[in-house]
């Protein structure tokens, strides 16, 4: 899926050559110490304007998306679940999501059918209740006034509605209580569409619910080690120290 070097706007190199391949339907977990480049990787994949890919390519289903704009990548089936979701005041969450879904559909075919408001609302209600939102999500503004946990769950909700082919979830589990974590993890493991997933996390606990195909340790802008699900358990016990050099 990718093989990149990336820098910040002022030229500081953060990703120093990362090669990662996620097949359709696979679940990969990325762990690593703070400052290792996990969030940068997520941003670079999505095309954040603050980072520049200096070397390498990002391929999505074999197609080079390295030069594509953020919205094009999204319409091609990429999704980023934010570590810190942004609040947009006065923008109704349901209306926004419907526009986003329609944009994606329209991107495929010019005469594509757009989703009916009623059907969409039903889907949204159903999916939000499975994530145990206490309030009627369709009436609320996008992330405005959401608790930390609600914001994280709302990212997952957006993902389940947008049905991307690949998703990067940047610490979807941090700040969630045990119940919210369960709902979140269940929503991810019971998706009604195939998804290639890159899950960035600090904690092993989420892996009780989501079984990864691979675990990667990201240190100082490089993948220091890759392994199976048991690697996460080992990290929990031993920390990252032995990968620091």
């Amino acid at each position, binding site marked *: 899926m990718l093989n990149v070097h990336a820098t910040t706007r002022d030229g500081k190199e953060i990703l120093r050559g990362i090669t990662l391949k996620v097949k359709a339907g696979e679940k990969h977990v990325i762990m690593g110490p703070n400052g290792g480049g996990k969030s940068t990787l997520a941003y670079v994949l*999505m095309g*954040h*304007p*603050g980072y520049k890919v200096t070397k390498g390519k990002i391929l999505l289903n074999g197609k080079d998306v390295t030069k594509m*704009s*953020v*919205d094009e*990548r*999204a*319409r091609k089936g990429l*999704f*980023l679940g*934010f570590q810190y*979701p*942004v609040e*947009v*005041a*006065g*923008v109704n969450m349901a209306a*926004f*999501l419907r*526009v*986003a879904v329609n*944009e*994606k559909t329209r*991107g495929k075919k010019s005469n594509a059918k757009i989703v009916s408001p009623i059907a969409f609302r039903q889907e949204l209600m159903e999916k939000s209740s499975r994530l145990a939102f206490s309030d009627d999500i369709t009436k609320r*503004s*996008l992330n405005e006034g959401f608790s930390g946990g609600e914001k994280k769950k709302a990212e997952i909700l*957006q993902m389940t509605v*947008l049905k991307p082919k690949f998703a990067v979830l940047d610490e979807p589990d941090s700040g969630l209580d045990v119940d919210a974590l369960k709902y979140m993890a269940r929503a991810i493991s019971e998706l009604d569409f195939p998804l290639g997933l890159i899950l960035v996390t600090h904690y092993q606990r989420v892996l009780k619910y989501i079984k990864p195909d691979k675990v990667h340790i990201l240190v100082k802008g490089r993948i220091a080690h890759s392994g199976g699900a048991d690697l996460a358990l080992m990290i929990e016990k031993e920390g990252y120290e032995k990968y620091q050099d």
Partner: protein
Amino acid sequence: MKNIKTNYKYGFSKPETETFRTPKGLDKKIVEAISGYKKEPEWMRDFRFKSLEIFKQKAMPGWGADLSGINFDDLYYYINPSEKKFRDWKDVPTDIKDTYEKIGIPQAERLFLAGVGAQYDSEMIYHSLKTQWEKQGVIFLGTDTALQKYPEVFKQYFGKVVPPDDNKFAALNSAVWSGGSFVYVPAGVQVTIPLQAYFRINAANMGQFERTLIIAEEGSFVHYVEGCTAPIYTTDSLHSAVVEIVVKRGARVRYTTIQNWSSNVYNLVTKRMLVEEEGVGEWIDGNLGSKKTMKYPSVVLQGKGAKGEILSLAMAGAGQHQDAGGKAIHLAPYTTSTITSKSISMGGGRSSYRGLVKIINGAKGSKSFVRCDALLLDDLSRSDTYPTNIVREQNVTLGHEATVSRVGEEQLFYLMSRGLSETQATSLIVNGFIEPIVKELPLEYAVELNRLINMSMEGSVG
């Protein structure tokens, strides 16, 4: 003074049908001609003369928008489109109907047209009032007609809320006013459907000076909606209106304006409400168009427990300066006011919030809250805030909050990561920003406004 019949073409390529217009420029003779043509009573003619003198003496405002581009000698001060008054929609000339079609008055509104007074050039030409309102004693007429038909009530209130010496442009309007609406709601009557009026400047170099007077008797309610759309002209035009509203004890008046003058118009309007005991006065004022706007709707809270609310929305694009805001004058105890201002500047446009909250000694227990939020879409644009508070009473609550924000990279990135284009994302952020005001608008207007904003974003975002 001779009557000039013309039939020339202008921007919208509709033949003008007016039968009387004064020559360019302004002097006593012109004012006399306007008053004489309208067969006005002597007191009104004298009022106009007096106002003209005040206009001449008063200096231009030394603050606000730059008005140096106005040439008072190069404007027409009166054009009458038709000597005939129409009461039935079917009697309205086809070319005028065509004009409405082009302006794009939505279908839903056409249903309401039975109760609408529409202004074509500077005269009300069409009037129809729903029978039920007539039965309730509601008067909704062109201001000129009201002066003829209801001289006593007219004289009692006219020029009392906004006297000619209030400011230079109020004096100008008082001297040459023409058209506008007159609304009288008897005690206890609730007018459930908004009264709507459409205004439009239709001749190049035509100044438009409508005058609106609304009187809501005790315990009554009325919502008046005014929307303006003007086609494009090559030379500057001046729109200088005066709106006077009297809200009697326990009554409530809401006045909604969406102003979308073409970008060559100077829009200088004085709007004021007097609110008596336990009355409620509300202004919803949206300024999208014009070259320069100076408009500060005011509530004068003169009775105990009176409430005033001002929602001001300004959008300034390239070449525009919106100097807008509101004023709340607390003259009685336990009066409350809220001013909410939302402004958007883009493409090098400038918007300013200018507001005044005044609480006099003795207005104890009064409360006022001012909130102004500005959104900048780029580095070229500008936003300023000029709040003034004058408080002469100890026992009051006064709040002020102001924010200035940029459409941020993080917000755009977030929305675009869901597949929205930069234009769509920006429109969404802007629409979300003004949502607290838009939700107060009648649905058709909210839809129109949304459409307008999306249109202007397409022009401004790369």
